[in-house]
């Protein structure tokens, strides 16, 4: 992918010549920057700010079988470098979603990663079946950070058995050739245990991470700030937790595709995830403050890769895990230097 994605109104920016394609399961995406579920709706609103078909993919808000009104307001509280949200999966239900939202994404030429959420294994299976033959569908992300109504509200993602059961059910009824990613919660003792259970159950890849459970108390009302009492923490505040999760899972499962996320604000943040082992990244909360963030992060990531001498994003995936004896070239200014890429000479840089 070397074409420009600058908007008419922007000063000309030529994205450096880096191969940004990334392989997630059986699908090759043109670049590794995606939106995050619940932070981009189904792409239409963001399309007012940039062409959403220029992203690797649009991860849509988790959709359930029936329409859902979500939780009581207030639904958000800003926190230092982050926010707490308690939306409660408000959405139109899968049928309206397919008719309107997915249809729009398909017509727009965007690659849709449809996130599904349910209250039982059967819900997930039904949702996956509904996606058979859906136009524009590139991938399925299974949001397993949901309470299992059949197990006293125990969250699927906190139990390897329940996680595996959901993944297996989705794989059985999902359309063939569409990768299924399980999205994991960081609120577990050992995330690699859940990751392995999902992969053993047939997951084609993993999305890491969902929000962390948090609570804010309003000192004026002296009550919890959110209508739902607890909420999910997101934004740069959680980035080190997310990078750690990607690192651990990459170490435990060297070959599994990973979609990394949690507090990505810049191209360098995205690069951190890639170096920790992510094959692609999602930009979530940052969009609320900067609607153009995903495309900006993509441009910045391309520059950051080129500056470090990479000719493709794939070369950088998991590089932070390399043994200590491999060192960066000596010199006063490692940035802008070449890193084992004879195709680049100094004149070509920047």
């Amino acid at each position, binding site marked *: 992918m070397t074409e420009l994605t600058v908007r008419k109104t922007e000063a000309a920016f030529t994205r450096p010549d880096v191969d940004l394609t990334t392989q997630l399961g059986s699908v090759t995406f043109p670049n590794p920057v995606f939106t995050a579920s619940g932070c981009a709706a189904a792409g239409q609103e963001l399309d007012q700010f940039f062409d959403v078909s220029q992203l690797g993919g649009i991860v849509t808000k988790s959709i359930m079988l029936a329409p859902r009104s979500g939780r*009581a307001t207030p639904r958000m509280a800003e926190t230092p470098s982050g926010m707490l949200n308690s939306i409660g999966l408000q959405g139109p239900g899968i049928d309206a979603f397919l008719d309107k939202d997915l249809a729009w994404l398909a017509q727009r030429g965007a690659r849709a990663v449809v996130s599904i959420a349910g209250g039982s294994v059967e819900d997930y299976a039904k949702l996956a079946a509904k996606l058979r033959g859906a136009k524009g569908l590139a991938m399925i992300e299974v949001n397993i950070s949901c309470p299992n109504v059949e197990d006293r509200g125990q969250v699927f993602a906190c139990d390897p058995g329940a996680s595996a059961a959901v993944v297996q059910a989705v794989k059985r009824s999902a359309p063939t050739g569409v990768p299924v990613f399980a999205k994991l919660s960081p609120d577990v003792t050992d995330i690699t245990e859940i990751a392995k259970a999902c992969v053993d159950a047939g997951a084609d890849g993993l999305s890491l991470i969902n929000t962390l459970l948090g609570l804010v108390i309003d000192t004026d009302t002296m009550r919890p700030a959110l209508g739902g009492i607890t909420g999910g923490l997101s934004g740069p505040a959680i980035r080190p937790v997310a990078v750690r999760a990607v690192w651990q899972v990459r170490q435990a499962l060297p070959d599994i595709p990973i979609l990394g996320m949690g507090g990505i604000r810049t191209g360098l943040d995205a690069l951190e995830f890639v170096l920790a082992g992510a094959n692609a990244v999602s930009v979530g909360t940052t969009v609320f403050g900067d609607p153009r963030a995903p495309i900006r992060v993509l441009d910045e990531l391309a520059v950051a890769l080129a500056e470090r001498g990479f000719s493709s994003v794939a070369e950088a995936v998991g590089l932070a895990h390399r043994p200590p004896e491999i060192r960066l070239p000596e010199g006063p200014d490692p940035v802008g230097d070449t890193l084992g890429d004879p195709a680049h000479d100094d004149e070509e840089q920047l």
Partner: protein
Amino acid sequence: MPVQVQGEVLSIRRVGAYFAMTVVAPGMAELTRPGHFVAVQVGGPESSMLLRRAFAIYDVKERGVYGGTVEFIFSVHGKGTAWLARRRPQDKLDLVGPLGKPFRLPAERVTATLVGGGYGSAPLLPLASLLRERGCRVDFVLGAGDQHRLFGQLDAKRIATSIEVTTDDGSSGRRGRVSDVLPELLDRTQSDVVYACGPMAMLRAVTEICSSRGIPCQVAVEESMACGIGVCMTCVLPVIGDDGKTRMLRSCVEGPVFLGDRVRWSDVGTIPEDVVGSITAQAGH
């Protein structure tokens, strides 16, 4: 369609308890209608405050010596607005706007009453000018906690046929609330429509007064917003649709202006049981 603009502060001045900030924001003025709002990034690019702050647009100028400008009126509430109050001319400010659905204008020459609470009068002043241009009669009711929190009294006097002022402490106009003077004013002026912007409790009271008289009213609500552009679902409130069903609508894109009698005021902050997709309604699944 909103635009994202890297603007520049042209001026910031104190107006009573508020600040009036004018920002050079090319391309935004021509798209703006009364009732639209703007979302402002606060704290600079490295800020730990990730979310934009929403402000009703007060005045716009399509062209000036400096290019198009947008003005909004704000009170210092917390960290973000305190930061804004410290901006000075030529400081950079990232704006997204105009956002939301503006006030709908009547097709005919009607008599309109505009009710503003605190800084809520800001979007009503350009609306009043527009209504006057269309040959409508405009009457104002402005209310606030005290005289320093009244905004736009002079402008309103200039534009409107009549103006009534109330303050909670009686420091200006009549002691009391806008809802104390509104019924009599509506009866006297034979108002056809009402427009209101201000605190939620005031909007509810205004709606009740209008409903009991069969007068349509449009209200601009203020709900906590994370994105302002319709992608996050934080800013919802229960609103009755044309089909009689209640849905949790996003006030940033489906509002902030709603028909007052469509908002289920007593259920704001809750999920009513009969709302489309309520958890209770799904209990059978």
